C-alpha cells in the first residue's frame, strides 16, 4: 500500500494505482475526457492535470501512479487556468453543428467545456475541414468533431483485438481513420461508437432517429449468444432504435455486431403479425381454437405420443418451462427436444455425469485471470464474442498463455502461443495426445490430482497406448507443436478450457468431451477461483432450455425423466413412419437450420398438424397448419440463463408488431384451453413455480456451479483407438457460425445484412487451383441428393481439403448437406 495526500486528505491505495484512482476513492473528482477505465491510459486531453508538491510541472492524474508521501493538489487557480486554456485549444476549429450532431445532449466535450469554464476563445488557426466518411457501413465518422481521445482506437485494439482504425497523419491533420484509408471493414461491433465522447463516430442506423433524451432506456439482456451481455434498449414510440451497453455492466459495455446492431431484426418488415390457420389469417381465438381442437383430436385418435415439440434457445426460461409443461402436463407427451440435440445436450450430459455441471464451471470473468487458456474446436469470435473479449484480455493484459485448437485460422490465432490446426475428425486424437504430453512431462496439477483423483494410474495406463508422434501425424500438426502446447497449458497454475461447436457437433462428441474433461481435471482447471471449464454456444438460452427440461429424457432441474420421450431424430423418424402426427415448433426452423433439412421438409409434409410459433416466416412455416406470431426478446419479460449460470432478466422495451404475443402468454393460453384450467400467469409467477422445482433458480441470480469443492473425482478411462488415416480424396464441409450473424435470426436484420448479406464457401488456394476456380466463382457442393451453390472465397484460413461455409443463410442452406449427428460432411465440390 502507498500513502499519499490529495487536497489535504490522506489515503492509502494499492501500489500501481494512479492518482486519479486514489482521488476517486476519496470522492474527489478530477476532470477527465480521454480516460476510459477499460483500456490503457492515454493522457491525450491533459485536463486531468494536477499539481504534485516538489514536482515542477503538472502531472496528469490518469496515468501517473502514486508515490509514497506525495502531496497532490487537484484544484487551484493555476490548474483551472490550464484546464480552461486546454479546452479552448481543443475547441479551435471544432465544428459548431451541435444542433444537428447525434451526440448533442450526450456529448462529453460539451459537458467538459461547460464544466471547465471554456466560455471564450483566445486561440485561432486556419480552418481546414476533413472529409466525413459516409462510405463506411453501419458507422459514420466525422473527423472534424474528433478530439483525438483515442478511446475508439484503444477499444478496437485492446478490447476487441482488431486494428480496424488508427490514429493517422500528423499535426492538426491527425484523424482517426482506417489504416489503409479504405472504407471500414471490421467486426462492426460498434464499441468505438459506444465509447466516442463526441459525435465523431456515430451509428448510421441510429442517425437522426431522435435526440438522445427522447428515448426510453430499458436495461435488458442481449438475446443472441450464450455470453449473456447486459444491454440497454433505446426505444421511441415502442420501437427499438439502438442498443447500448454501459461500462458498468458485467460485460464492461462491450458488445458485438449482433448485440449492438442486430436489433434491426426486431423492426423487420417480415415479422409475423397475425395468427394463421391454413393459409388464411385468423384471429387468436380461432387459431387457438384450431390448435386445441387439432391437438385434442390427434391425442384422442393416436394417443399423446403422436404429438411432439421442438423448443428453442431463443425463448426465455419461463417459456421453455411452459413448453415442456404443456407437453408433459397438458398433452401427456414426453416427445420434446430441441437443437441442443445437435451437440450441446450430449456435451452437457458428459459434464453433468462426470462433473455435476449444467454449464460452465465458473462465471466467465474467471477466464480473465487464467494463467493459460485452451480454446478447443471453437471459433469464439462467432460463437460467443463476449467470451472472446475475455480471452483476449487474459492473453494480452494478464499474460495468459493461449493454445488454440481449431481446424481453421480464426481470429484468436494472432493471440495464440500455439495453434494446432488439426485435420477434421481428429478432436479425440488430439485431446488424448495433449493429455499424454501432460502426463509424460509431469505437468499435471499435482495438488489437485493427489487430493481429488484416485484413478490416475488407470488413465496413464490407458493412454500409454497413445503415440504422440502418431497422433500428431494423424492430426496434421507437428509433434513439437503438440508438445509445446501441452507445456504451455501444463506450466500454468490456473487454466481455462473453452470448447464449442466443432467439438460438440463432431461425430465422436461424447468421447471427445469426456477426454477434454480428463485433460481439464489433470490441468487443475476446475475448482479454483480462476480458470474453469467453459462450453460455449451460439444461442442465448441453450442452458436455460435444458435446465427447464426441454429434452426427452430430462425434467426441469436436470432430473432424469422416468420414461424418455422421443428425441429430435426419433421424432423425425416418427413423423416419417407415421407414428407422430402433430409437431409444435417453438422458435425454431429445423428445415433451414438443422442437418438433413430436405429430409425434414419432406417429413413435415406427412403431418396432420404442424403448429409454428415464431416471430418470422422461416422455411418450416411454409408447411404450417397453424401459425402463432410471437414476440422477440426486446418485446417481452422473462429470464435467460447464460452459459455460466447467470439468470438475467430481460425487460419489455418495445411493442410487439400487430397481434404478435409473448411466447409465455401464448403457451399459457394454450395450456389453459387444453386443460380447462384458467390459471393466469406472468413471467414472475412462472419463475416462482420454476424456483420451487429447479434448485437455485430465480430472476437475477447466479446459479452455483455444482462442481464439488471436495471429494474424489474419477477420470473416465476409455480405450484408445488408433487415429484414422486421413482420407486424401474427399472434401470435408464444415458449416458454422460467423461473427456477423447469430443463427438465422440476424438474417432478418437489415444492419447485419448490410455487412454480411449472403453465404459463401471458404476454400484453400490449393483446392481452388485444383478445381480451377478463383475468388468469387460459383461452387456447387453436394452430399447425397442435397446440393447447394455459393461463391468461393479463396483463403488460407482453411486447410487443404476443408471447406467452411456459414450456416445462417436460408438462401444457401449448407446445413442441408449434413447428416444427422455430424457437424461436418464429406462433400463433392465442383465448379457451378
Amino acid at each position, binding site marked *: 500500500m502507498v500513502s499519499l495526500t490529495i487536497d489535504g486528505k490522506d489515503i492509502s491505495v494499492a501500489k500501481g494505482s494512479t492518482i486519479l484512482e486514489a482521488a476517486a476513492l476519496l470522492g474527489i473528482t478530477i476532470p477527465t475526457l480521454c480516460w476510459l477505465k477499460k483500456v490503457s491510459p492515454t493522457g491525450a486531453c491533459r485536463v486531468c492535470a494536477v499539481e504534485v508538491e516538489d514536482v515542477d510541472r503538472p502531472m496528469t492524474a490518469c496515468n501517473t501512479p502514486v508515490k509514497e508521501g*506525495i502531496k497532490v493538489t487537484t484544484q487551484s487557480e493555476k490548474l483551472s487556468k490550464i484546464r480552461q486554456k486546454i479546452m479552448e485549444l481543443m475547441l479551435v476549429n471544432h465544428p459548431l453543428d451541435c444542433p444537428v450532431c447525434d451526440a448533442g445532449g450526450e456529448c462529453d466535450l460539451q459537458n467538459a467545456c461547460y464544466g471547465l469554464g471554456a466560455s471564450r476563445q483566445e486561440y485561432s*488557426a486556419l480552418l481546414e475541414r476533413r472529409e466525413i466518411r459516409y462510405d463506411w457501413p453501419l458507422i459514420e465518422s466525422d473527423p472534424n468533431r474528433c478530439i483525438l481521445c483515442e478511446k475508439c482506437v*484503444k477499444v478496437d485494439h485492446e478490447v476487441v483485438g482488431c486494428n480496424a482504425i488508427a490514429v493517422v497523419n*500528423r499535426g*492538426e491533420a491527425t484523424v482517426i481513420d482506417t489504416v489503409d484509408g479504405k472504407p471500414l471493414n471490421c467486426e462492426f461491433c460498434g464499441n468505438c461508437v459506444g465509447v466516442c465522447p463526441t459525435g465523431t463516430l456515430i451509428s448510421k442506423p441510429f442517425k437522426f432517429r431522435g435526440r438522445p433524451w427522447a428515448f426510453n432506456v430499458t436495461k435488458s439482456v442481449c438475446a443472441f449468444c450464450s455470453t449473456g451481455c447486459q444491454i440497454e434498449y433505446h426505444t421511441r414510440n415502442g420501437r427499438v432504435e439502438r442498443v447500448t451497453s454501459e461500462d458498468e455492466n458485467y460485460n464492461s459495455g462491450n458488445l458485438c455486431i449482433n448485440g449492438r446492431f442486430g436489433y434491426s431484426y426486431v423492426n423487420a418488415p417480415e415479422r409475423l403479425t397475425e395468427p394463421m390457420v391454413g393459409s388464411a389469417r385468423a384471429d387468436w381465438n380461432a387459431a387457438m381454437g384450431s390448435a386445441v381442437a387439432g391437438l385434442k383430436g390427434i391425442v384422442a385418435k393416436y394417443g399423446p405420443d403422436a404429438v411432439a415439440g421442438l423448443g428453442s434457445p431463443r425463448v426465455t426460461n419461463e417459456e421453455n418451462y411452459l413448453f415442456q409443461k404443456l407437453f408433459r402436463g397438458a398433452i401427456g407427451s414426453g416427445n420434446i427436444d430441441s437443437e441442443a440435440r445437435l451437440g450441446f445436450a450430449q456435451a452437457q450430459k458428459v459434464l453433468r455425469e462426470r462433473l455435476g455441471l449444467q454449464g460452465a464451471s465458473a462465471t466467465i470473468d474467471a477466464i480473465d485471470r487464467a494463467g493459460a487458456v485452451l480454446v478447443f474446436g471453437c471459433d469464439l469470435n462467432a460463437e460467443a464474442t463476449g467470451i472472446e473479449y475475455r480471452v483476449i484480455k487474459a492473453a494480452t493484459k494478464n499474460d495468459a498463455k493461449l493454445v488454440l485448437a481449431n481446424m481453421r485460422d480464426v481470429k484468436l490465432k494472432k493471440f495464440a502461443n500455439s495453434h494446432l490446426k488439426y485435420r477434421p475428425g481428429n478432436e479425440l486424437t488430439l485431446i488424448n495426445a495433449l493429455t499424454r504430453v501432460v502426463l509424460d512431462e509431469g505437468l499435471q496439477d499435482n495438488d489437485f490430482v493427489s487430493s481429488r483423483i484416485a484413478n490416475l494410474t488407470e488413465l496413464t495406463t490407458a493412454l500409454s497406448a497413445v503415440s504422440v508422434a502418431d497422433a500428431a501425424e494423424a492430426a496434421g500438426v507437428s509433434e513439437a507443436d503438440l508438445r509445446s502446447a501441452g507445456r504451455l497449458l501444463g506450466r500454468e497454475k490456473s487454466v481455462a478450457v473453452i470448447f464449442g461447436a466443432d467439438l460438440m457437433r463432431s461425430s465422436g462428441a461424447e468421447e471427445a468431451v469426456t477426454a477434454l474433461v480428463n485433460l481439464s481435471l489433470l490441468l487443475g482447471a476446475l475448482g479454483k477461483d480462476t480458470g474453469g471449464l467453459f462450453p460455449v454456444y451460439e444461442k442465448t438460452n441453450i442452458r436455460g432450455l435444458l435446465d427447464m427440461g426441454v429434452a426427452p429424457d430430462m425434467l426441469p432441474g436436470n432430473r432424469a425423466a422416468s420414461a424418455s420421450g422421443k428425441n429430435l431424430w426419433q421424432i423425425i423418424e416418427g413423423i416419417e413412419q407415421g407414428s407422430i402426427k402433430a409437431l409444435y415448433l417453438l422458435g425454431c426452423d429445423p428445415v433451414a437450420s438443422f442437418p438433413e433439412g430436405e429430409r425434414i421438409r419432406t417429413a413435415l409434409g406427412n403431418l396432420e398438424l404442424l403448429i409454428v410459433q415464431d416471430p418470422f416466416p422461416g422455411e418450416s412455416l411454409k408447411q404450417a397448419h397453424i401459425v402463432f406470431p410471437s414476440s422477440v426478446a426486446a418485446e417481452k419479460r422473462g429470464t435467460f440463463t447464460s452459459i455460466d449460470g447467470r439468470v438475467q432478466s430481460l425487460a419489455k422495451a418495445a411493442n410487439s408488431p400487430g397481434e404478435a404475443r409473448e411466447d409465455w402468454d401464448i403457451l399459457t393460453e394454450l395450456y389453459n384451453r387444453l386443460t380447462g384450467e384458467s390459471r393466469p400467469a406472468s413471467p414472475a409467477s412462472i419463475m416462482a413455480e420454476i424456483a420451487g422445482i429447479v434448485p437455485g433458480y430465480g430472476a437475477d441470480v447466479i446459479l452455483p456451479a455444482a462442481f464439488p469443492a471436495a471429494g474424489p473425482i474419477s477420470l473416465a478411462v476409455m480405450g484408445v483407438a488408433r487415429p484414422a488415416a486421413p482420407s486424401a480424396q474427399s472434401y470435408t464441409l464444415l458449416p458454422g457460425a460467423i461473427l456477423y450473424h447469430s443463427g438465422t435470426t440476424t438474417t432478418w436484420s437489415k444492419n447485419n445484412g448490410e455487412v454480411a448479406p449472403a453465404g459463401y464457401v471458404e476454400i484453400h488456394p490449393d483446392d481452388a487451383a485444383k478445381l480451377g476456380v478463383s475468388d468469387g466463382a460459383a461452387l456447387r457442393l453436394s452430399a447425397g441428393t442435397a446440393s447447394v451453390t455459393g461463391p468461393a472465397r479463396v483463403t488460407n484460413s482453411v486447410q487443404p481439403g476443408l471447406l467452411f461455409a456459414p450456416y445462417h443463410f436460408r438462401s444457401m442452406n449448407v446445413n442441408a448437406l449434413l447428416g444427422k449427428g455430424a457437424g461436418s460432411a464429406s462433400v463433392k465440390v465442383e465448379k457451378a
Partner: protein
Amino acid sequence: MAQVVFSSWGGTVVDNRAGGEAKDASFRLPTTLDGERSLAAFMGWDGIILFDKGVDVPAMAAEYMKRVQTLYCCGKCTPGKKGTRVLMDALAAIVEGRGTEAHLDSITDLGDLLANCKCTLCQSSTVPVVDAVKHFRDDFLAYIRGAQKPVATHRYIEKYTAPCMDRCPAHIDIPAYIEAIKEYRFDESLTVIRDNMPLPSVCGRVCPHPCETHCRRKNVDDAVNIMVLKRSASDYEWMHNAEPPMKPKPRKSKTVAIVGAGPAGLACAYYLALEGYPCTIYEALPEGYGGGMIAVGIPPYRQPRHLLQRDIDIIASMGVEIIYDTRIGTDISLDDLKKKYDAVFLAPGAHRSKPMGVEGEDKGYKGFLKGGIDFLREAYMGRPTGMGKKVVVVGGGNTAIDCVRVALREGAEESILLYRRSRKEMPADVWEVDGADEEGVRFEFQVLPTRIIVDGNEQVTGVECVRMALGEPDASGRRRPEPVPGSEFVVECDTVIPAIGQDPDLSFIPENMGIDITKWNTVVTKYIPLKDAAGKELKDGMGNPLVRTLITDLDGVFAGGDAEIGPLTVVACIGNAHRAARVIQRWLEEGKVYLTDDEFMEDILTNFPVYDKGETVPWLDSVERAHQAEVHGRERASKGNYQEVELGFVDSKAVQEAERCLRCYRVAMAAV
C-alpha cells in the same frame, strides 16, 4: 574561427549582434554541414544558435514550427496538436505580413501552456520560437509593420530525434517502439525496431544499450529498460508464431556480395534485400554457425542459438543467399568477387585474438590456448577446446567474462579471471561481471600475469603473476597500474586463456588491390572532413572520422562492421552496415557515393549530442525501472547447461516499463 553571433542554447544568452568584444560560446557543432555548406544557424529544443547574422530568424522560426506541426507532431495530445498549429499559423501570419503584436503574445502564452504536453516534442519546439520572439522581437515587429518581407537566403534541414535514438548507433526510433508497447502493439513495435535493427532478438538480449546511458528518464530516477523492451517486442512475434511482415521490393538485377555473415553483413544484406537487391553472403564457418561474432563470440546462455538462427532465417527468406564454409582469399578470391558482383561489402569482423605479451605464450605449451575468442568458438561449435579442469582467463572485457562463464559450462572445476585493474575499471558490462560472480567464478583483480609455468611435458601448471597498484597519474591524468615489487605469486591451473582483445584478420585483401588498411588493422573508408570552430576534425568514439561514406579506396568495394570501425558492438556494426547499404544502393543506382543531408545531421547531432545529463527533468518518480526475470544459482552454469539465463519481461511488465518512457522527441533544424 566561426563566431557565435547569438545563442540562447541551454538558457544561456550570448549576444554578439551588437558587435564589440565577442563573448565566448562553443558548441560541438561543425562549421559546415557537409564540408562545403556553412552552418549558419541551428535551432532546436534548447534554443537558437546563430553563426550567420544574415539568417532571418522569424522566417526560420516560422518554418521550424511548420515542420514540427505538419511533419512530426503526433497529434496525440491537445496542447501539442492544437497548440503547435496555432503557433504555426501565428508565425505564418507574421511572416506573410498578416501578423499583429497579439500574435507575439499568443506565442509566449502558448510556450507556457505547452509545458502540459504529453511528450517533449511540441513542448520543446516552443523553446526556440519563444526565444526568437524574446530576443529577435524587433525582427518580428519589422514583419508586422510590413517593413520586412521574406527572402530565401538559407536552406533549412531538420532532423527529428531523441536522446536515446541519437545515442543508439543504429538510430532505432526508440520512443516509437516503446510507445507501441504502451499501446499493446508489440507487432508494430517490432516493425519500428526492424526499420533500423534487423537482428532484434539479438539486440534485445546482448546489446550494451548505450541508449540507456542517454535516457532522459535517468534525470528523473533510472533509465527505461530499453533493451529488454526490444526483446519483448521481438519475442512476441516468435512466441505467437507470427510471420514477419517485411515485403522486399521487386527483385533488381544488380548484385551485391557480402563478406561475412556477422551482424554487419546480415544487416547490410537485410536492407539491400528490402530494396530488391540480390545479396550473397560468404561465410567462412559452416552452416548452422551464421551470425559471426554473435554466434561464436556470444555464448548461447546469453543469446540462444535458435533465436539468432530465426533472425538469420528471416533474412534468408527475404531472398538473401548465404554461402557457408567459404573463406574469401582461400576458397574464392576477393578479386573474383569484385568481378562477379556489382558491389562488394567487406564485413569480416574481428576474429583474431591479440597476443597477451607474457613470457612463454609463444612456446606452444599444452594448456595455453590460442585466445578467448577461439575458445568460445570451439566451445560453441562443440569441438575440443583443449580446456582442462582449472582454467585461468586473462582479460577484463566481455569476451573474458564469456570465457570464464563458458569454462564452467564446459565442465571446469575452477574458473579464474585475472585482470590487471580493479573490478570497477573492467570494460566488461557490469551485469556480465555480476553474472560470472554469481556462477562461482574466482576473480583476481589488479594482477599481471608474467610467466606461464609448465611441467616437464610442457603442460601448463600455473601462471606466475605480480600484484599491481596504481602509480602516479600520467600525462592524461589517468593513474596507470604498476607492478608491486616482491608481490609475485602463482595461480595454479592447467589451462590459460588469453582474452585480451581481437582484431580483424584482413589477410584476404591482396596488398595490390588498392584497399588501404589502417595501422589498427581496419579497412580505410572515405570520409567527409567536418571541423569544429577550432579547426579540429570531428571523430567518432573510436577515433575514426565522424562522417564516413564506407566506400574503400577501391570503387565498388565497401566496408563495415568491426573490420571498419574497429572491434566494437553488434549495434554499432548494424548501424554502420545500414548506412553502408544505403550508400551501396546509391552507388548501384546513381553511380555516386554520397550522404544525404539527413545523414549529415544524424552524425552532427550524435557528436553534439542530443542528451544533456545536466538537464533537470521535472517528473514524478513513482515507478522504478523494471528488471527482467533471471535464472539464479550456480546450477545455471553447470556442465552442459547453456539454457538462457535472462528471461525477459512478461507482456504486462513490458507495458508497465514502457509507461516510464518520457518520449523525449525533439526537432533540430539547421540553416545552411
